[in-house]
């Protein structure tokens, strides 16, 4: 069962990557994408890191955007 799941995941990733070849832009079409506001993780400067710290210490979830980590003591 696990092997079959692995196979399905591998196939999906491969399919997605092949599909991705049809997506995208030429280098000269990157004017909008080159802006910091269009860069995931960098668009809002330090906000993401500060938010992750707040919510990490108030909720039972972490990670996803980056590493989950163990973070702080946070009582």
């Amino acid at each position, binding site marked *: 069962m696990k092997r079959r799941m692995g196979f399905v995941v591998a196939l999906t990733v491969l399919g997605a990557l092949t599909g991705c070849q049809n*997506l995208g832009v030429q280098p000269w079409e990157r004017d909008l994408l080159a802006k910091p*506001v269009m860069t*995931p993780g960098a668009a809002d*400067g330090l906000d993401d890191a500060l938010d992750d710290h707040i919510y990490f210490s108030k909720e039972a979830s*972490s990670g996803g955007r*980056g590493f989950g980590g163990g973070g702080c003591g946070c009582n």
Partner: protein
Amino acid sequence: MKKTLDGKKIGAGLAAATCSLLGQPALAQDAADAWQFDSAVLYYSEQDRVTAVEPVVRGKKQFQDESELELKLTLDTLTGASHNGAITSDKPQTFTSPSGGSTYEVTNEVPLDDAFKDTRVAANVQYTRPFSRTLRWTGGLNFSNEYDFTSLGLNAGLLWDLNNKNTTLTFGLAHESDTIDPVGGAPEGLTFQSDEVKTDGSEDRSINDFLFGVTQVINHRWIMQFNYNLSVSDGYHTDPYKVVTVVDANGDPLEAEGFGATNIGPGDAQIFELRPDSRTRNALYWENRYHFNRDVLAVGYRFMSDDWGITSHTLDVRYRFQFANGWYLQPHVRWYEQSEADFYKESITTSELTALQSAQDDVSADYRLGNLTDTTYGFKVGKQWANNQQLSLRVESFTQSGDSDASELDALITQVGYTFYW
């Protein structure tokens, strides 16, 4: 957590180390060759509970070989009160302070431990360097210290550009080693707080993280990111300052002396919580950024589930109204929902306590492990100048709501940010 951090030495040492790195005069003044500094001060204030002031400074520099160095220093000052885990009752309840030096009594209110005070210092270094036209490696170190907690982490990753740089694959590994040194010692789980059965010395926890990400350009207006993050944590996960109330059939707090434990006052049947010694989390994250003619919409969604029985959904939406003169206004809405951990209980009965103690099973009344729905809404307003300097102000309202009185929380998030080149 009880005393102010006597860590001036650490703080000063780190600051000196960072300053000696950052303090070198910039060779050129133009932005391409200068350090980019992002700085911010966050003021986080909960109604009747915790207040945090958090200044952060991050320096980034791109070198001619396209490598990039990033240094970050964070200071975090916490004061106020924090929920101690007990129920809210119209009958009096008595608790000991974490250091064991004193007791306090609470009636008709969410029981808070008001000696909450701490200072955290965190430093991060990250270096990224290309080793071919399409491959980059990255490595980093993290250090974080507070009065009762020290954390050391390192990470390494590979970034692989494909399809004419329209697809980027990210593979990352991280290891973190935490040392927890609770004030007054680490309590023995499931024993009565009034007995103060604690062990001296510190507790440990280690976390290993794996991250796989795909960033994909869809068209010249739309970029998408998809991440999978696995996090495996081993060691001490218990909150040493949290208790669980033992109640009678009416839901009223019982007396410790009824169980042969030390009597310190009315309603003192409070046991120390106990959590599993491992945790495995899986998180999926999906982010979309879409550029309209001027404005930008960003939508993020995270799904997380762990082997403690917690499942959560997070939705984060930002819309940036961009104005012609460099000003922008960015409303932000965040919605979060989680289900409770298998071992979460608001309180326990005598028979539940007996069963827990004989099986040494886990139990916690920490509302952060219970059912929760959180909402955040607010805005950010900013101005960017022609020399790329940027000033911003963020104001947000954060509300938590769950099954217990302790989970009802309102907080204000205020942040001032300034970006400059030097």
